[in-house]
């Protein structure tokens, strides 16, 4: 199961890189997100999988297509292959892989992440918050301050994009009036 999903992920990634039509890239990115959601379900992270499926495959695809509606759909072929960016990508990718080598094996019960506050959340959250889903309890209660920050990030990003899209139009109108 894991091997099949990861192979498909790799295939879709290569297809995204090779594809010149940005319309195709947007659709493939949606497929990638659905595969990623399946991987997260295999990892038992259902909440994250649901977010990945709805945001990654749903809204992102719609917004990418909406952006394509405003721009051109064919990517311009690069004039020359950039060896510098290839080297940079390889070095950064290598560093990330090297970094993961130091992590404890997946699912180890006594890894530092599980040794700190996690046992307390798992044991006490139902008694303290009355909410059976520990993810919701941590997200909205124990880490409520962080979630408030997240909501503010969405608010700020949304306002920023709205202002960008609107502001340009107003400038266009003003330019037309001045003509």
């Amino acid at each position: 199961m894991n091997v099949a999903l990861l192979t498909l992920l790799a295939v879709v990634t290569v297809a995204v890189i090779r594809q010149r039509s940005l319309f195709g890239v947007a659709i493939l990115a949606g497929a990638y997100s659905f595969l990623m959601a399946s991987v997260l379900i295999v990892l038992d992270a259902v909440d994250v999988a649901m977010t990945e499926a709805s945001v990654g495959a749903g809204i992102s695809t719609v917004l990418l297509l909406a952006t394509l509606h405003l721009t051109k759909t064919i990517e311009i072929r690069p004039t020359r292959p950039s060896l510098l960016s290839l080297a940079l990508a390889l070095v950064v990718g290598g560093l990330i892989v090297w970094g993961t080598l130091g992590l404890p094996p997946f699912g180890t019960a006594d890894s530092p992440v599980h040794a700190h506050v996690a046992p307390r959340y798992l044991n006490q959250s139902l008694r303290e918050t009355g909410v059976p889903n520990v993810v919701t309890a941590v997200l909205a209660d124990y880490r409520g301050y962080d979630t408030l920050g997240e909501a503010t990030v969405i608010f700020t990003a949304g306002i920023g994009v709205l202002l960008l899209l609107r502001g340009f139009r107003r400038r266009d109108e003003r330019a037309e009036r001045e003509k």
Partner: protein
Amino acid sequence: MSLDLVLRVVTKLILPFIQMFALYVQFHGDYGPGGGFQAGVITAGAVILLAITFGIRAAQQIAPKAIVERMVPLGVLIFAATGVVGLLLGRNFLDYSVLAHDPVHGHEWGIFLVEFGVLVTVSGTMIALFYAFVERGR
């Protein structure tokens, strides 16, 4: 778009189920997977599907632009106000214990209100962004 009969009929058929699923994800998030963020995105998805199939006017009749754009800051305010209530009643910011007589019940209420705030901001932002993109493309 008026020729896509299958698309229009299927959209009409599945829209109530999408909306229902969003509400389920929102209010069942305490017991199963889900919560305000996912429910907000699914709600926005229903409106966007309506806009894609039946045109932006039909969508804006159900979710008017003015309301959607006010929802963007409103959700954050609901979230922050829930925290401020705790502050005013002599506890820490975002301490939900004071929201009901019983602390555990207060936490349940706090989580409910906070998730509702997230739902409002996320769905508002996503729909407003989609409207902005569509209007820019005209």
